[in-house]
């Protein structure tokens, strides 16, 4: 039996949960989903509909509305002993939580798996994805985080699993949620977007990201950024694509004014099609780009925007 820890905001599941379920399905066995939250019934009901899920466990308490790792680990550790594998998405949620669970169980954690070879052997990227390690676990319980881009999401519909209520532990009192500033955007989420338009240091200012936003809206795309653009304060941290930011693999990734440092490539080089727009024709980004366009982005991006508007008009 496998347990997948669902990531959600009580009202709905985060899409990365579906990729973690996909990895669990590849390992094989009955899959249970844990939804820990407060007023989390809507998320649990979504979980019950996921294809291939055999049972949903729901644990609710006021403290779990914005759960801290200390309290989630206290919930998961006793449950984990009934399972061969416990998986979570390799998002900031899963990365924060799962090593705590693993250490309390005295087992290793297998981070960010990108492939399943067998129930005890997995592939995971190391050195910013410049090498792939195949690792075998000798531990009785495998604690795993899953790289979402490496596993196609399972169907969110088609299942009809029972929902079982389990008790939530009393809060540890060690840590307390004190607030959040979450980005609100009408655009798709970076990690699940079909198209991403990303900007780098070459954008020169946060204001200039409006050029990319306009382009993104024509394409139904998300907007991302390189570390350089985030460090420079052009855009907030949740835009960052790269080794230590978000890992993305959309169908189309348009890199604008991004030179292509190893750390950035690590976050996007599995995209299906990569377009690079940069004035420096020696920029390393061109080596991974399917279509490179050398020139001034402040001319190219508005021209691209206009061209897309024209074609859209023409197709009507």
């Amino acid at each position, binding site marked *: 039996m496998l347990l997948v820890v669902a990531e959600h905001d009580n009202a709905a599941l985060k899409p990365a949960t579906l990729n973690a379920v996909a990895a669990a399905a590849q390992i094989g066995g009955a899959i249970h989903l844990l939804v820990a939250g407060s007023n989390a019934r809507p998320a649990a009901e979504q979980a019950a509909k996921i294809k291939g899920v055999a049972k949903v466990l729901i644990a609710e308490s006021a403290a779990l509305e914005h759960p801290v790792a200390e309290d989630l680990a206290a919930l998961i550790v006793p449950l984990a002993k009934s399972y061969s594998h416990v998986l979570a998405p390799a998002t900031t*949620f899963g990365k924060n939580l799962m090593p705590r669970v693993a250490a309390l169980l005295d087992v290793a954690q297998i981070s960010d798996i990108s492939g399943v070879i067998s129930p005890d052997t997995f592939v995971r990227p190391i050195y910013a994805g410049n090498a792939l390690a195949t690792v075998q676990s000798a531990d009785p319980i495998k604690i795993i985080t899953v790289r979402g881009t490496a596993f196609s999401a399972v169907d969110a519909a088609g299942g009809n699993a029972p929902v079982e209520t389990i008790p939530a532990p009393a809060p540890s009192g060690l840590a307390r949620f004190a607030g959040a500033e979450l980005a609100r955007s009408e655009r798709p989420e970076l990690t699940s977007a079909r198209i991403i338009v990303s900007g780098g240091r070459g954008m020169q200012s946060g204001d200039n990201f409006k050029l990319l936003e306009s382009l993104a809206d024509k394409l139904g795309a998300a907007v991302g950024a390189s570390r350089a653009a985030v460090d420079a304060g052009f855009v907030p941290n949740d835009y960052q694509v790269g080794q230590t930011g978000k890992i993305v693999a959309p169908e189309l990734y348009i890199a604008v004014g991004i030179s292509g440092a190893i750390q950035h490539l690590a976050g996007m080089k599995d995209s299906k099609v990569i*377009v690079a727009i940069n004035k420096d024709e020696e920029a390393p980004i061109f080596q991974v780009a399917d279509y490179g366009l050398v020139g001034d982005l402040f001319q190219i991006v508005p021209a691209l925007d206009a061209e897309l508007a024209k074609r859209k008009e023409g197709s009507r």
Partner: protein
Amino acid sequence: MKVLVAVKRVIDFNVKVRVKADHTGVETQNVKMSMNPFDEIAVEEAIRLKEAGAATEIVAVSMGPPQCQETIRTALAMGADRGIHVETTAELQPLAVAKLLRAIVAKENPGLVILGKQAIDDDCNQTGQMLAALLGWPQATFASKLKLADGKALVTREVDGGLETIEIKLPAVVTTDLRLNEPRYASLPNIMKAKKKPIDALTPEALGVDPAPRLKTLKVDEPPRRQGGRKVGSVAELVDKLMNEARVI
């Protein structure tokens, strides 16, 4: 309050890593090694706490072969007060490192342990969380702001959706994200001074920890290489290719 920082010696972030021909790992011979960048941010944060009067002593810990002393010296040159080197040539995985750190915490009694959120070699992102678990302490990972007051820490964390702030009781474990601070460079006089600062030598045996790895690396491969490098001449050509060749828009 004493602050413990953990520093790892890794292949420098600018080096293009190459997989060994026998697929047992990556080339580390004659390759430039440096302190893990996230650990530099951890050292810097500890120094800033000391400069602000919130910390009294900074102890930098590293684990691994004798060359790790160089990494500790870097931390001492930045401003740490003394070092601890756990010497071993054994492969150390995050759980073993967390157990060794727990043993050191038991000897040193720090009020705060700061680590990098992730080492850029194995990309595990585990050790801080594991150490917090083993100690029964709270954790604040991916920190971009740290404020200490009244036996508590208010930590702003970089999460996928934006920023989150949590309040944790001290003692605690904090792991650093990129925007926490910009680490200083060590000045030449401080590099000279660092040579005289003490480094204690310990071993896993002396700390009573079995560091045996739990994960066996069966092989290390190169990822499939992308066929890139094609250029287009105009915006119109780009849109044509995206529509009719790649068919992604």
